């Protein structure tokens, strides 16, 4: 089922784009970028719903009534939860609106990753599986093998710009793409981070902020490590996806650009 409904359509879409681009040098990289844009467009409503939900929750942290109930019921968790639910209901806020779309998108992200990996067909078995994955309309003899060259990269291998000297922990050279992946992930995560809650007694908000703060550190490190280790085609996907995410969030006009600067988070919160 996973193969039939997620992987197969995605691989075919990716390779169909590659085919109509003319399968020359650099075209597979461009195909990955276009493919990511298409998937982002398809999942735009989900992302928009996530952004909207996150914004509503963020606004709530600065709401007077919300802050008052935090203070009033600070020692009675049950009552606090009841009051919170009342406010959610009154204002039509779904507390899960920001995380549900993420959960729904998770299989899509995994599918994207697997589709790109599968399309690269690094071994004979991968190639055989790829051949079986393609729909009959695909121009399979011409598509295979993919021309994996993109800019200075081979999309089937980890990226690295050769250095004039050897560095033992950088066997592939200077990891420019991994750094860009980590940076764009950091920017995306930081932009969507809520401001530090002005009320220190709002424990839930403080915990959420702490969690977001952790994400902004660990997520770039994890994706950077992926970019360092795995085929650079995946990095092209990560960068495109991150940039589109940043654009989408910026388009809402609610991006916290101050968060990108040291201490910007607190400054942002104080302003409010």
């Amino acid at each position: 089922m996973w193969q039939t409904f997620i992987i197969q359509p995605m691989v075919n879409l990716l390779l169909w784009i590659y085919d109509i681009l003319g399968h020359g040098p650099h075209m597979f990289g461009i195909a990955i970028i276009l493919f990511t844009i298409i998937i982002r467009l398809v999942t735009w409503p989900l992302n928009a719903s996530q952004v909207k939900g996150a914004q509503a929750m963020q606004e709530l942290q600065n709401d007077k009534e919300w802050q008052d109930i935090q203070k009033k019921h600070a020692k009675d968790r049950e009552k606090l939860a009841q009051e919170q639910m009342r406010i959610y209901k009154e204002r039509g806020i779904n507390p899960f609106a920001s995380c549900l779309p993420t959960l729904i998108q998770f299989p899509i992200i995994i599918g994207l990753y697997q589709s790109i990996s599968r399309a690269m067909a690094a071994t004979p078995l991968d190639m055989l599986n790829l051949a079986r994955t393609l729909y009959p309309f695909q121009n399979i003899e011409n598509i295979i093998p993919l021309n994996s060259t993109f800019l200075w990269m081979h999309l089937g291998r980890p990226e690295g710009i050769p250095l004039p000297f050897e560095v033992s922990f950088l066997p592939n050279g200077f990891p420019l793409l991994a750094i860009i992946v980590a940076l764009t992930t950091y920017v995306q995560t930081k932009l969507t981070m809520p401001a530090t809650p002005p009320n220190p007694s709002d424990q839930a908000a403080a915990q959420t902020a702490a969690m977001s703060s952790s994400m902004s550190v660990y997520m770039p490190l994890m994706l950077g490590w992926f970019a360092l280790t795995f085929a650079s085609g995946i990095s092209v996907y990560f960068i495109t996806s991150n940039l589109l995410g940043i654009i989408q969030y910026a388009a809402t006009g609610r991006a916290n650009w101050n968060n990108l600067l040291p201490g910007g988070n607190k400054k942002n919160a104080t302003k409010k």
Partner: protein
Amino acid sequence: MNRKKIFVILLLAFAALTLSACSGQPLTNTWPGLAADAERAYLATGSFIYAVDLKTGDQVWQYPSEADNSLLFFATPVLTEDGQLLVGSVGTTHSFISLDPASGAEKWAQPFSGAKGTWVAPPLVMNGTIYAPNTDGFLYFLDMNGKQTANPLELGGSLWSAPVTDGELLYIASLDHHLHILDLDGNPIGEPIDLGGASPSSPTVGEGGVYAGSFNATVGFVSSNGEFQTAAEASNWLWGSPAFDNGVLYFADLNGNIYSVDAATGSQNWGELKPDGPIVASPLVAGDQVYFGSENGTFIALDRDGGIVWEKAMGGSLYTPPVLSGDTILVAPYQAEFALAAYDASGKQAWTFTPVKE
């Protein structure tokens, strides 16, 4: 570290695990490589290379002693006249190593690790030179101590199959649809020849040239002066190398059709013959019989008229070409109950070998 942080780390670790290993299989996986001399079979099957005693089916040695993700072996090992067993890795370090066939000990001071890509193809060894094709599209030239003797030659595409030689020229097929002809010093002779499709297996030396199958479902004959002509056609991709014996070509396609074609006239010797599922592995010609292994796991012995002499259901999939050592036919199924089996020409099983899981 508070609970939230631990939760975030666990969540990210889960995501990393899911993204990198959803299938539950190693990131790099394919079917095993198999070779044999008079005493032992050598099976390259993922984390280990196993040497197996041909008389008993017992393990003689394994390399390395412990699994190491930087070393993954699937390429067919190659035995040299000076007593080396050469094999390249598809692991992260792209090592190309030399082992002692008797003990499994490393023979070179250090492995050759100068290639950018992995080693799917076995090398060709001739006159003290190792011609090693890599997935980075380069052909590397090494001496018998693993030192580069010349700059690598860029052929293009990804090189998945060993070069072959008629003694004067080298022929090497690429996934970029081309066959390259080189002299023994590695100088290209003429322009690469377009085969019409990717060619994942080695060409087969015939009379005055080579036969090469490709994904465009044809066997092409390329003469030593680079002229191409279609020698035979199939109904689907040709993955394995054709076998050439006494003027007859034997090959099979991904639809499971098995062909016998008179190389001189191009005429089919058999009617339609499709005994089982898709066929990827190159056939083996030995004595009066021709052996084919199917993806459905059936090993088939045919006589020269296309009659089935015997067949064995092995389980798993038979992608690895069968290998002959003396009178023993070795078969290495992929994902079966055993990793290697030995048969005689009558189909009697001598032994099976299953690596001990540590």
